[in-house]
């Protein structure tokens, strides 16, 4: 009769396999943290995104002190003042201690999840001190806050981009594989065309076909469209290949013998069987979209100031002076690295956990 293994639902089997890989779990954990931070950026960031303080350009990260005169007094920062505006050097004003306050009321109102208006922010310090956890940029904007706001753009572009590519790729690839003949021929030549042009040139060429000065929300859409346009091709080819093999399966014949029509067979019987592979392929493809946005913004033709994105935050780190004396400007790059790595770890873990030979429960 039914054994313990057999009683598990596919999700339970998936979870059992997935949690065997600590690296994949770490990847998933990091991504959950970062996406959570992006959602609650307003709360977590001490500064609103565009706020600047021109007197404090290129301020190094502010150290947070816990002890004063050998006694524990709780987290506080020391106020600082500009010494040399040319080299952007600062010195702390000794004795001017400013405690880090939690749940402070910010100056600007925002809405949590776009619904509940509030001014509360997780932490902040009173003027004239500045709390630059990750330093500040040329205009004295807080890198930490902008990193959080920028993650909204950079991280969501990956998900939306892959979602669009996924839809187009699955649909086109599925039809191509199932219908075959002329449709297949045309579609496959188109995908080859897209894939044969080096991605960066294609991105730049496509970017050139849109106007250069557009509001950042529309720019966001343009970038998503460009990246999805490039990305669907490889997914479509994967799907087509799988459909070609799946359509010869007996259960597809069985479904036809039951009287199911073409679309029903494709969408209900063939494509669901490609999902486990596609989820993995999509997960591993997300970093490509994130890097695509970063590339465009880094080159100054993507997300425009004052809107923050991880790519345009790195634009400032292009010259050697900044790299040498303001290494904190590279922090967005570090986060890009972490996200790309996390997606790849997650993808690997999913690939192992969704492997159908394992899912059968021991029988290989």
């Amino acid at each position, binding site marked *: 009769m039914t054994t313990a293994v057999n009683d598990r639902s596919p999700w339970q089997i998936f979870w059992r396999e997935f949690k065997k890989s600590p690296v994949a779990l770490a990847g998933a954990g990091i991504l959950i943290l970062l996406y959570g931070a992006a959602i609650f950026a307003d709360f977590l960031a001490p500064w609103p995104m565009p706020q600047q303080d021109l007197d404090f350009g290129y301020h190094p990260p502010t150290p947070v002190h816990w002890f004063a005169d050998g006694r524990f007094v709780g987290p506080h920062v020391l106020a600082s003042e500009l010494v040399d505006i040319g080299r952007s050097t600062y010195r702390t004003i000794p004795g001017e201690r400013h405690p880090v306050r939690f749940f402070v009321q910010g100056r600007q109102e925002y809405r949590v999840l776009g619904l509940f208006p509030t001014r509360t922010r997780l932490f902040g310090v009173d003027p004239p001190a500045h709390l630059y956890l990750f330093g500040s940029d040329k205009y004295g904007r807080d890198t930490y806050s902008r990193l959080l706001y920028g993650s909204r753009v950079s991280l969501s572009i990956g998900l939306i981009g892959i979602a669009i590519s996924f839809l187009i790729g699955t649909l086109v690839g599925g039809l191509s594989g199932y219908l075959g003949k002329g449709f297949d021929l045309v579609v496959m030549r188109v995908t080859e065309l897209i894939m044969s042009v080096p991605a960066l040139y294609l991105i730049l060429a496509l970017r050139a076909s849109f106007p250069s000065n557009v509001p950042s929300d529309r720019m966001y859409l343009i970038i998503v469209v460009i990246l999805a346009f490039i990305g669907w091709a490889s997914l479509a080819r994967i799907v087509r290949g799988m459909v070609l093999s799946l359509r010869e399966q007996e259960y597809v014949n069985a479904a036809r*013998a*039951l*009287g*199911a029509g073409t679309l029903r067979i494709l969408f209900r019987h063939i494509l669901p*069987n490609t*999902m486990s592979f596609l989820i993995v392929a999509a997960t591993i493809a997300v970093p490509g979209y994130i890097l695509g946005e970063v590339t465009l913004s880094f080159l100054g033709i993507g997300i425009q100031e004052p809107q923050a994105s991880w790519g345009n935050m790195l634009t400032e780190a292009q010259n050697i002076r900044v790299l040498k004396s303001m290494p904190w400007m590279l922090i967005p790059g570090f986060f890009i690295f972490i996200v790309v790595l996390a997606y790849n770890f997650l993808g690997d873990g999913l690939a192992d956990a969704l492997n159908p030979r394992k899912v059968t429960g021991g029988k290989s």
Partner: protein
Amino acid sequence: MTEAFVLEVRDLRTHFVTDDATVKAVDGVSFAVRAGETLGIVGESGCGKSVTSLSILRLIPSPPGKIVGGEILFKGTNLLSLPDPAMRKIRGNDISMIFQEPMTSLNPVYTCGDQIMEAVILHQKVGKAEARTRAIEMLRLVGIPSPEQRVDEYPHQLSGGMRQRVMIAMALSCQPEVLIADEPTTALDVTIQAQILELLNRLQREMGMAILLITHDLGVVAETCNRVAVMYAGQVVEYAGVEDIFARPRMPYTVGLLGSIPKLGEERERLRVIPGNVPNPSEFPSGCKFHPRCPVAIDRCKVENPPLTTIRPGHEVRCWRSGEAEAGTLDMGKAFEEVTS
């Protein structure tokens, strides 16, 4: 007489056109079944029996396959002239099919219940809840224990015999009038085979459908069929009642097939076989397609393909020498023994 036939195949021709050659996989096959009757289609691998069954449901992959001639009459309607949507209504509802491989014939991503419900929802105007009740009923009917629980299980959680039962439940969920069973027991072990055949027999008695049983196993035929069509190289070579086939075979090929069944208590070094191989379907020999392997072939067999002739009421044979065998002047069985021993 004719109107009693539920399914009648007349001179069916299914060819596969490739760049190199035209393969006449089915070349003029005719047979008919009545309600409640089981017709066995027997033959070696590659003789066209599966193509015949797929042709009935018009499931031949096209290209390269094409039904180039003949008629398939389901209660008087020619299925070959039906438009596609009408044909889809017939599939699974009036004529359904069980496939050979229970391991791969169920979609791994859906529960058994979902797959049985699919046929019901496709063909009958019922809601999900009712379709589910129906699926559970069908599972019980095909003898699956605790169907309320099994209905939510996935194919990989079931054994081969269970899966074949689920396939049968799927095929029968809309109470079809014709069931095509393409080697339903080939992939199962012998005890399960017997159970599945017994199940099919019982369901046939209860539901009164006609069964087209495609098999290469003469034991299965003897147990379940009323009439038998023996196929060789895309043609029916002998068509008779099951008793006649076993007691009075008149086509050398049938004789050879029966002779190759090992008999209990018989001591032999090697099993008896029909010498030679099934001819390559793209280059069939001229004349009677069996003549290169036939121990009693005469010169006429090499040039002229014999027609299917009635030698006794209800017994048709495609052989120039069937008359001699019927008259008792030719012992085909003995001829085989001489070439094989």
